[in-house]
């Protein structure tokens, strides 16, 4: 099989868990709020005591994925599962705390969490992932690239399945994002999403896109601005709607719009 199929998508957003929590009109539902925030997931145990909110959201997204795909942790553990992580600014909160924070936040335990690789790092530790591993930085177009990377890794036999994970938080840097109004449009909605890709029948296509796909427009209307999470949210919406077994995803970032078509089950 040379194609790729989507076998599940896990999603948590500032609106709640999954697609069913999304409002019909995110702008209206935001009622003037610039940021719709996600609380820190209440994950138990000392293991997560020092992890940042973003790391825990990454773990929560993978847990949600397992639920959606009907899988257990054992099904993704090991060297046959690739992890591709993408984010535009999911390291901002940790960076800011490190710069501003004084003795406690500017400490040994905090610095490693300022790296973009901290989120996939904690996810890889938690779910014992030891396979192919890539991390991209950017908004929705970068998430399309990340999905493409996953399809490549599958096509090349570098993995038996691939997780594509995106996490975005905004609350701690709300004032900075406000200055970047030309780049990001409110409401900024914190999200974490994870898709599971497996070998499929239908070949994927990856190419520049001239215009947003209907799914891109729908995802923005129902979620708001979610940067790298947007294409994965679009995927979740497509799956929830059922029907089509081929989806056309697009994502734009800094003037480039990328597109990917995928089979979905």
């Amino acid at each position, binding site marked *: 099989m040379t194609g790729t199929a989507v076998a599940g998508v896990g999603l948590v957003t500032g609106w709640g868990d999954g697609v069913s929590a999304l409002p019909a009109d995110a702008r209206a539902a935001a009622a003037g709020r610039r940021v719709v925030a996600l609380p820190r997931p209440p994950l138990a145990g*000392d293991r997560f*005591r*020092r992890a940042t909110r973003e790391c825990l959201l990454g773990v929560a997204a993978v847990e949600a994925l397992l639920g959606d795909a009907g899988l257990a942790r054992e099904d993704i553990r090991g060297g046959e599962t690739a992890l591709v992580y993408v984010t535009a600014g999911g390291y901002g909160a940790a960076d800011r705390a490190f710069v501003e924070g004084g*003795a406690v936040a500017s*400490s*040994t335990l905090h610095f490693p969490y300022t790296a973009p690789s901290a989120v996939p790092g904690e996810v890889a530790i938690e779910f014992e992932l030891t396979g192919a591993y890539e991390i991209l930085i950017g908004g929705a177009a970068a998430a399309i690239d990340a999905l493409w990377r996953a399809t490549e890794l599958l096509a090349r036999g570098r993995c038996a399945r691939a997780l594509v994970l995106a996490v975005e938080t905004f609350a701690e840097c709300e004032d900075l994002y406000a200055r970047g109004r030309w780049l990001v449009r409110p409401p900024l909605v914190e999200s974490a999403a994870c898709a599971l890709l497996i070998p499929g029948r239908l070949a994927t296509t990856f190419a520049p896109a001239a215009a947003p796909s209907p799914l891109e427009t729908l995802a923005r209307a129902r979620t708001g601005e979610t940067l790298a999470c947007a294409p994965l949210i679009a995927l979740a919406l497509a799956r929830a709607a059922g029907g089509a077994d081929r989806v056309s995803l697009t994502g734009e970032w800094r003037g480039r719009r990328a597109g990917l078509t995928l089979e979905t089950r």
Partner: protein
Amino acid sequence: MEPKEVLDELKTILTTRLKFDPRRTSEMTLETALPKGVEGSIGLDSLDFIELSIAIEERFGIVMDESQDLTAHFASFDALCGFIVSRTGAP
């Protein structure tokens, strides 16, 4: 300083610097093992130990010699308190 006082200070460090839940730290005793991999330990890894060392240096005014192997002193609270008391004791 008495070992009990040192233990209380260490518990404060564990809560404020190592981010343990206060209920967890209140349960810890002198016998509690520290390093990850030891049964019943509180699971500190290398990152935690660096943070802990820095906090101890700052709080107790002692200097950890990086070239020495201090592993034995970090095996349990008992060992660590003993180490700190010996370094801060009257000459």
